[in-house]
């Protein structure tokens, strides 16, 4: 396709044609007036010749002002482009600002398109969720039936049980993924680390009631990360739950701001993780210890979610003796509006 002529060139060319026409018209009128009033040239000459420099300046100023006007008119396009980039990067939810009358309808259409896109994503996500959750109850029944017939045919029951468990993990994994993929571009996604941690600590203390664990929280109230609450809960919940499962008595959650991100560390006083196992534990569906309760997908989901948000998760040795998980996430963007 032929590349369209630059807008600026077109505008200047238009101005040039306009000027030429005006010039011809002026010359035409000029000659008519001269023939009617022969005395005028002397008056013109006196005025024009005595103020040559001034007229030159006025002419240049007019031309410069014309260029500036064209430029200013065109600036709204580069501005629009910058804002669109911000929307695509997830820094802004929509196109804001006032634009010239010719551009504003375009901006309105773009905003409508963005809203439509968001609505579609939300709908698709809800459908994915419904599908996933709709499958869970039949799976539960299937597992129950297998369990019930377990006495008659143990092998079949075991196979069904294992496959149901695999399906459950697949559903959880892909659902978490879909949700995160849809929300990483959401600029409104900001969450106080402390709020998420506090809720999870309440929950985990209740769920691990019999263990008499202590969970210390050292997270300043103003630490914010760029993530949706659901996703931050999922990441921290898996890491904290894992720490609680392995800890002897104590889990410590702390966060600190470094550079453009927030690093959240979760320490436990359990047996720790062998250095050779650390990467594998964060891999898909790998279990550090088959005997450990819970699914091995937890940490893989954490890693994937963190990476989708431009962050990371790492396992290390804790000064407390056990394992340390460090979750790094970008800082929440401060709302400028």
């Amino acid at each position, binding site marked *: 396709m032929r590349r369209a002529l630059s807008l600026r060139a077109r505008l200047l060319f238009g101005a040039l044609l306009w000027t030429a026409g005006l010039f011809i018209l002026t010359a035409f009128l000029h000659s008519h007036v001269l023939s009617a009033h022969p005395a005028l040239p002397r008056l013109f000459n006196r005025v024009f010749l005595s103020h040559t420099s001034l007229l030159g300046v006025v002419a240049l100023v007019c031309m410069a002002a014309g260029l500036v006007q064209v430029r200013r008119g065109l600036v709204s396009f580069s501005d629009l482009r910058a804002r669109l980039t911000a929307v695509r990067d997830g820094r802004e939810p929509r196109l804001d600002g006032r634009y010239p009358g010719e551009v504003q309808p375009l901006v309105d259409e773009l905003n409508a398109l963005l809203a439509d896109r968001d609505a579609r994503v939300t709908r698709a996500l809800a459908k994915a*969720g419904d599908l*996933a*959750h*709709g499958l*869970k*109850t039949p*799976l*539960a*029944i*299937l*597992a*129950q039936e297998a*369990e*019930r017939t377990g006495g008659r045919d143990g092998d079949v029951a075991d196979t069904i*049980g294992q496959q*149901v*468990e695999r399906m*459950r993990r697949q559903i*959880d994994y892909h659902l*978490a993924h879909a949700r995160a993929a849809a929300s990483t571009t959401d600029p409104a996604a900001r969450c106080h680390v402390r709020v998420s941690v506090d*809720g*999870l600590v*309440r*929950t985990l203390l*209740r*769920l691990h*009631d*019999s263990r008499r664990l202590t969970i210390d929280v050292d997270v300043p109230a103003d630490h914010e990360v760029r993530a949706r*609450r*659901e996703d931050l*809960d*999922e990441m*921290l*919940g*898996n890491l904290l*739950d894992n720490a609680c499962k392995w800890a002897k008595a104590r889990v410590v959650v702390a966060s600190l701001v470094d550079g453009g991100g927030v690093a959240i560390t979760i320490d436990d006083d359990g047996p720790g993780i062998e250095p050779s196992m650390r990467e594998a534990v964060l891999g898909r569906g790998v279990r550090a210890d088959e005997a450990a309760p819970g699914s091995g997908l937890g940490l893989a989901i954490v890693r994937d979610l963190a990476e989708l948000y431009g962050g990371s998760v790492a396992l290390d040795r804790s000064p407390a003796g056990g394992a340390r998980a460090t979750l790094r996430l970008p800082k929440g963007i401060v709302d400028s509006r």
Partner: protein
Amino acid sequence: MRVLVVEDERRLATELAAALRDAGYAVDCAEDGERADFLAQTERYDAVVLDLGLPRIDGLTILRRWRDAGLSMPVLVLTARGTWHEKVQGIDGGADDYVAKPFRIEEVLARVRALIRRSSGQASPELRCGEVTLDPRSARVTLAGRPVKLTSHEYRLLSYLMHHRDRVVPRVELSEHIYEHGSDRDSNTLEVFVARLRRKLGNAFIETVRGLGYRIGDRP
């Protein structure tokens, strides 16, 4: 011990109820939120198994309503949505424990058992009182190490008394916790069960506190 199962999927509800009855509980079932709310507000349960995805009123709303109304029975939440965010919401809404679908029946039974044990302040999984031992895990009762055969009503009655052995249990309370909804409750049959238990476990084991109710004796 009496448990309410709130689950809209009939097949799953039936399975759960059957497994809980086998484990020695009196079980009522509700298929939707309204019915569950009605039963929980009018009957007395020792534990509730509550599915969150219910027709009409969702489980979380009902749970909050119960807690606002001051109902403190332990609630085990069942849900298809096993995310941590939902777990936090569930626990903050007043749930005591959480099982994600699909689950194993044994897991639900173990958690219900633990919830009932904790809410009645028992530390060990086995309840022991003199020479009588009741194991909720197997629903078995032994006297001096020998197994004692009990009917389901006798077992429920004994289990309730043993879970609350440090106090006198009024007859009304006892009947509220051992009969299923809609079953015929006659306080005479309660006395029949007590008499049978005394015959099997020793006369002094269940003490009648006149005008108040029953209490487990320290020495059979």
